[in-house]
């Protein structure tokens, strides 16, 4: 039944897809429905080129298959012996050239439009990390990270997969509808690439360089995309979600974000007890560390070291904090000093030293991280331990 419906859809959709626009979206035989002018231009350009290719294909292979049917030895066809005809050869060189010129003109117009990032209403810096995205709203001073929110058990097949499996995040990028959004795109570790198909924006994120791109969403809605440049183990698990909202909703979201930021700052000067630290630390561990070191801290032998029972987690706490803050250059271990708040670092260190089989009993507090942070900065550039 399942198989039959796949084939039915493939055949019916294939036929309908060629002829009707409506079927294209329904059967997903073409690009996603555009939600910006650039995406619409690309959509039209692709359809135009496909039609031209289809025309050429029918003419050339119509001739070939006619020949295959008629000019066979089994039908008694005698081979002609013509070859080399300059006129024919000039014609079949010039005609494709002219067709290509016809394609090049509209394509060039779209290229120029895509590259024009001037006069933005809003600028967002996008940073690719192994394996999450960071967004900094330069106009409003808002910063946050956007992690995959699909639960692990759905990926491992022990739970039913949700509707937006692998295309959902904890904190989406939120932008107002009808505004030109300029993206400043970079990366922290390796290459990534930021892509939302319906918005027609894709740009590689290159560590050490900033490249820009832009989009203007025409319709309110949620648009989903993924990282499209191989960035290591969890390349397939760092989606992008853009919520396009009305201008009022956007203003409300900005206000809410600024309130949350103040709470986070306040946390950095608080003192937590062990239970609070362990709860918060587990969340930070799952969001930032578990991709490599695993939720149970066992790591992946040969690829990613274990935290459970490791020397780092039982040795001096300062070394543990420094490792988390500075990373290990030349490996996948990133520097988290700029990614996590003092409270989050303190929590995750405490958690890792007291969870699983680790029973060091010691804990870190945000103020201690702040003290080390000023020390760590003066050590920047020195190789990690």
């Amino acid at each position, binding site marked *: 039944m399942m198989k039959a419906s796949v084939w039915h859809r493939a055949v019916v959709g294939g036929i309908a897809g060629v002829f009707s626009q409506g079927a294209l979206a329904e059967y997903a035989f073409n690009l996603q429905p555009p939600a910006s002018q650039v995406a619409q231009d*690309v959509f039209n350009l692709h359809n135009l080129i496909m039609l031209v290719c289809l025309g050429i294909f029918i003419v050339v292979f119509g*001739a070939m298959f006619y020949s295959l049917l008629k000019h066979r030895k089994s039908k008694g066809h005698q081979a002609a012996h*013509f070859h080399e005809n300059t006129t024919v050869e000039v014609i079949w*060189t010039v005609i*494709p050239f002219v067709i290509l010129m016809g394609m090049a003109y509209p394509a060039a117009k779209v290229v120029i439009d895509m*590259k024009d990032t001037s006069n933005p209403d809003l600028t967002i810096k996008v940073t690719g990390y192994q394996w999450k995205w960071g967004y900094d709203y330069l106009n409003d001073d808002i910063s946050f990270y956007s992690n995959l929110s699909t639960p692990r058990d759905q990926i491992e097949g022990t739970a039913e997969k949700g509707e937006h*499996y692998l295309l959902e995040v904890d904190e989406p990028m939120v932008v107002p509808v009808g505004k030109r959004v300029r993206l400043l795109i970079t990366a922290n570790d390796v290459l990534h690439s930021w892509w939302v198909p319906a918005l027609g924006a894709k740009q*590689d994120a290159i560590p050490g360089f900033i*490249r*820009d791109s832009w989009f203007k969403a025409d319709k309110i809605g949620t648009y989903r995309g993924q990282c499209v440049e191989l960035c290591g183990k969890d390349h397939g698990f760092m989606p992008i979600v853009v919520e396009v909202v009305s201008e009022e909703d956007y203003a409300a979201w900005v206000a809410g974000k600024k309130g949350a930021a103040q709470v986070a700052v306040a946390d950095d000067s608080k003192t937590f007890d062990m239970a609070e630290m362990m709860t918060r630390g587990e969340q930070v561990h799952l969001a930032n560390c578990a991709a490599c070191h695993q939720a149970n801290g066992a790591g992946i032998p040969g690829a990613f070291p274990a935290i459970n029972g490791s020397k780092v987690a039982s040795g001096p706490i300062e070394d543990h904090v420094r490792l988390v803050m500075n990373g290990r250059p030349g490996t996948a271990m990133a520097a988290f000093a700029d990614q996590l708040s003092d409270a989050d670092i303190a929590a995750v260190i405490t958690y890792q030293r007291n969870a699983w089989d680790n029973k060091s009993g010691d804990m870190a507090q945000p103020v201690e991280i702040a003290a080390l942070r000023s020390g760590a900065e003066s050590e920047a550039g020195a190789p990690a331990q």
Partner: protein
Amino acid sequence: MSDAAHAHGHHDEHSHGHPTGIMRWLTTTNHKDIGSLYLWFALIMLFAAGSMALLIRAELFQPGLQLTNPDFFNQLTTMHGLIMIFGVIMPAFSGFANWQVPLMLGAPDMAFPRMNNWAFWILPVAGLLLMTSFFLPGGAVAGGWTMYPPLFIQGGISYDLTILAVHIMGLSSIMGSINIITTILNMRAPGLTLMKMPLFVWTWLITAYLLIATMPVLAGAVTMLLTDRNFGTHFFNAAGGGDPVMFQHIFWFFAHPEVYILILPAFGIVSQVIPTFARKPLFGYASMVYATASIAILSFIVWAHHMFTVGMPVAAQLFFMFSTMLIAVPTGVKVFNWVATMWRGSMTFETPMLFAIAFVCLFTIGGFSGLVLAIAPVDIQLHDTYYVVAHFHYVLVSGALFAIFSGIYYWLPKWTGHMYDETLGKWHFWLSVIGMNIVFFPMHFLGLAGMPRRIPDYALQFTEFNQIATVGAFLFGFSQLIFLAVVLKAIKGGAKATDQVWEGAEGLEWTVPSPAPYHTFETAPVVK
């Protein structure tokens, strides 16, 4: 085998003390032996890298992680790509060149037989380095066959082994190319002018120049990776004044001509096969030669179309878009020529011809998707999606690989002295051509719908086309066992092949007995 060698190699002193057994193959300087070695190496590697592809497809049969973990999945995609390119397609074409170039030119052997031996025998070393890296701590290379830094800098010991393997394979290609160019330019039979050479020889001559021009570029790029990894240089590290994108420019300056290295000899094989079975000369010999040369020259100025999403200035974006579109012109000339050669011929459809026809038709689909990808704005949408995977498998599987099959069936009777099993050959063809389309055609739709490449798990809307592709992959993969059976059967026995083998075949290789004796053209033939 060695008896046959003695029987045929009756006159020169080599054959008297000729080693037997394994030493015969290790020390051989005979172009036919070395050609066979290359082809067997390619076949073994085809099954190795093909098994990886089946594992990839099995994992992608449904969403979720079933058989692999993400890191191992990346190792599979990376090694599948590297081995298929450097271990299958390129050695297979070298095998054809070794067997056929001397036979087609009326030359007794390649120009540098001892270097020829070396060019082959370092290849298995490279293959071994690649394959054993699966068993090292951290596993095999998982950074993609394109080896982009900084990801490539992060890996373990197997990344260094891979760099070494790439160096060795590059060295092998350069030695092979020097040999082929020297043979073609100096050892043609009297009267065989350049413009009378079979088209297969022409395409390999041009391919060999491409290899010599670009392999050192690749060697440079991976050497910089090696020093960045181990000796603290910062060629590709922005923090030290380097630029990760510079690697991509250097890499694609090699890898775009490499794309034509993988397809020009295929053009050559198909240009031999189609006239034979259409019983009609190639329509435009001269324009085919010029078109091949144009493609080769253009291949050096289009590299950055692989990089439309890195963020180049408008002028560069437009230049690379226009120059890439231009390649459609000489490629079109080739397709039109093949169709015009078939037109009003007297065609028969033995397996080599079937594969050649499938090549023309399906390679053109890959050409069209290439044209779609040449349009920069469309490419920006489709870059690094399954559309690209569909595109390059249409040109490399139904293009390069089908041409290799076509060539094997075409020349196998000459090499073994026996006709292959035509019924099995036709089964192999039909299952391959159907399977291949079931795997790769749906990938166009996956890419258009937004599925990124190189991911071990995917969102639910991609499920159905992935399932179709996986079913096709297993059909296509297991059909290749028929090919192995056909080859082994033809080596063991079968109907005796005539010298001419095919009714419409023309050229010097069809004037020698079947199987071709160990030493041929000891006295050069005269071409009128």
